């Protein structure tokens, strides 16, 4: 789900502001300070297509969208390709409406491989050009390319990404109370018990996210699934080679339930465990700052949710540690997600933009502007300023990492963005594991 990769402060004001900014950028253009650039256009020679336009549609909005537009400002200036960027909070539904209505954007950043497959099967997507393919293969691991490959054909290069296997905490509180960052599941539970024993609520969580309510809970299940089972079983589950209500899945869900449905553990600052389903995911972890809870499992992009002035660092107000594995011998499984740049048109300028977005130059330009994580191998970790982004890039580039893509994004949308989310909401509200999993299994498209 794309929602996961963007801060959803969802302020209409900010959107309006963004529109004004975009309009201003269209009018002027010369006066913007493309700080990241060197002013030397020779690197862009291969992409030149004077006087052309390319439209891009994605779910990235507000500040992040501004940074994105800044990241290709120099490219636009040097190549003569104007990029019309549009970000929408209704991206997933609207993209399908636009494509079916014959009004597809040239390029879309799709965060769900399931959706890529659907468009590819329907013959709407254009396979990447040879140049893009070469760049994508050089810059991203085969694992990542697999998600944008349908029937042996590559449809897009990976773009931004995020790491989900993080537990947010307050280093300050940890030092004050003498807690140690847990490195195994048992230590994590022992720490939770210690906090609960002292009369506190160790965990806080929130899965309300507008029409995407439920997705943070699916991330929980996927992350635990990667810890109770092997990555191979995870793949089988995601591809429906084992039923959704397989005992192995039930085991993972129940284990997640020992935290999420445990009224002694949750929901710090919000109420009982049922309050998880009505707590906005953006607010889910904030009680950490007031010491009403201590731990909050959420992805790297949660860094954007802390109020202004919060220091996100190993010695700051908040930071995150790796969501520990149950059995350390199985390596460090990582759950993550990201967008892919797919094209609905194959005009040369569209291909040029697609190729450029797959390049190391763009990844580094964008990273220098801040708040950016990508699995691009060319990305120089020194260009990443934010400590949590640095940690994420380090994990993504580590060859020993066992990476798995967000399962609900790989499943068919009616499950991955439908019954899985809904089922999780009902589960949090007290429905039993077996009933929930059967409900999801029954809805899997035949």
């Amino acid at each position: 789900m794309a929602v996961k990769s963007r801060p959803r402060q969802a302020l209409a004001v900010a959107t309006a502001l963004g529109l004004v900014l975009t309009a201003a950028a269209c009018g002027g253009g010369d006066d913007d300070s493309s700080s990241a650039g060197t002013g030397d256009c020779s690197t862009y020679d291969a992409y030149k297509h004077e006087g052309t336009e390319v439209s891009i549609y994605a779910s990235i909005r507000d500040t992040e969208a501004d940074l994105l537009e800044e990241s290709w400002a120099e490219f636009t200036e040097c190549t003569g390709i104007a990029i019309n960027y549009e970000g929408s909070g209704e991206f997933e539904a609207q993209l399908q409406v636009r494509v079916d209505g014959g009004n597809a954007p040239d390029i879309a950043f799709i965060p769900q491989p399931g959706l890529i497959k659907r468009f590819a099967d329907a013959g709407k997507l254009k396979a990447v050009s040879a140049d893009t393919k070469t760049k994508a293969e050089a810059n991203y691991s085969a694992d990542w390319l697999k998600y944008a490959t349908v029937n042996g054909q590559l449809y897009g290069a990976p773009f931004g990404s995020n790491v989900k296997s993080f537990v947010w905490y307050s280093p300050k509180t940890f030092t004050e109370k003498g807690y140690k960052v847990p490195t195994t599941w048992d230590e994590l539970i022992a720490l939770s018990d210690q906090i609960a024993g002292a009369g506190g609520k160790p965990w806080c969580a929130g899965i309300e996210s507008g029409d995407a309510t439920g997705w943070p809970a699916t991330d929980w299940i996927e992350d635990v699934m990667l810890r109770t089972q092997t990555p191979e079983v995870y793949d089988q589950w995601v591809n429906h080679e084992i039923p959704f209500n397989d005992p192995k899945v039930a085991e993972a869900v129940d284990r997640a339930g020992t935290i999420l449905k445990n009224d002694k553990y949750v929901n710090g600052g919000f109420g009982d465990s049922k309050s998880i389903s009505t707590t906005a995911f953006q607010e889910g972890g904030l009680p950490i700052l007031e010491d009403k809870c201590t731990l909050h499992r959420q992805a790297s992009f949660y860094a954007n949710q802390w109020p202004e002035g919060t220091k996100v660092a190993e010695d700051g107000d908040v930071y995150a540690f790796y969501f520990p594995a149950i059995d350390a011998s199985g390596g460090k499984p990582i759950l993550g997600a990201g967008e892919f740049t797919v094209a609905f048109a194959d005009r040369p300028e569209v291909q040029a933009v697609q190729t450029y977005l797959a390049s190391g130059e763009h990844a580094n330009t964008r990273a220098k502007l801040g708040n950016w994580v990508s699995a691009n191998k060319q990305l120089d970790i020194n260009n990443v300023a934010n400590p949590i982004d640095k940690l994420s890039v380090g994990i993504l580039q580590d060859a020993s990492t066992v990476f798995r893509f967000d399962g609900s994004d790989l499943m068919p949308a009616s499950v991955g963005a439908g019954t899985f989310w809904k089922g999780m909401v009902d589960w949090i509200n007290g429905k039993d594991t077996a009933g929930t999993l059967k409900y999801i299994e029954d809805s899997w498209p035949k």
Partner: protein
Amino acid sequence: MNFDLADQADKFVMLLGGLVAFVVLVGGLLLVLDVIPTRLATRREARLAAAADAGVPIAAGAGRGREGWLAAGFLAPALLLLAIGLIFPAVRTTILSFMNRDSSAFVGFDNYTWMFGQPDIQAVLLNTLIWVLVVPTLATTIGLIYAILVDKARGEAVAKALIFLPMSISFVGASIIWKFVYAYRSGEQDQIGLLNQIVVWFGGEPQQWLLGQGYKLNTLLLIVIMIWIQAGFAMVILSAAIKAIPAEIVEAARIDGTNAWQMFWRITLPAIRPAVIVVVVTITIATLKVFDIVRTMTNGNYETSVIANEMYNQSFRYGETGHGSALAVFLFVLVIPIVIFQIRNIRKQRSEA
């Protein structure tokens, strides 16, 4: 991000162009609408006069052909748009409802068996039924009672304006207001939701209203929003109807010694019956289509979904075009009897008049 007016000049020019185009087009159309029928009428009169002068008997409907063409000419664009915007999509949706997820093969009645077979979709249908039964009844009743109570009372205009106000708020806006009414904070915190604050004042525990604690409480709480919006509409129409009751009838009834109760059941209600039917039918159709409130409040979670919301989700979010179309067709089928009833009703009134 400085906003330079000069930079935007071309946009203003465009806006001006649009305005001019609008004036020219609409003004021209109005002019044509005014001139042509007048000219045709004058001509016919002249012809009739000439015929009468010559002593030729006049055939009924003579000279109507040209006016018929004119009428067809004006109707054609509307019919064309209706065909493109309504009839074609309706036919296409019906066809799609018999096809699979991506509309690539026919699957017969699979989508319909799915609709009635899935427990969660059954819940959706049940919810829609509850909405349709409760909203028109309560909204009309409340509107009617209010209309009678404030009729000829002091400060009638203000009282009416108060209940009519919610009508002017969009469904989404109204839902956001009510979201705050139902908002939940745990007992140890300050309540930000009105309802829970009242509960706390009376010494109760704050409730998570929208999660639903049985008896479809959350659906009923969403229904309250719709009633809040629609009661004003009912009140305005019914109030106008009450005022239109001929004073003689009311006076005659008074002289005959009716009490208030008899007055309502024997005089007022029969007199405003057509208005009540219009109100009920309009609200029923609006209720069947309810989408914004559910989507804004819960997005159909906690078993509060209704057909329109589920249709949107299935078609556009899950890519299950077949399922979505089947739901749409079902909704369409539900509306048809109401529309037929309304048309027959109008016809009957006309023949009575």
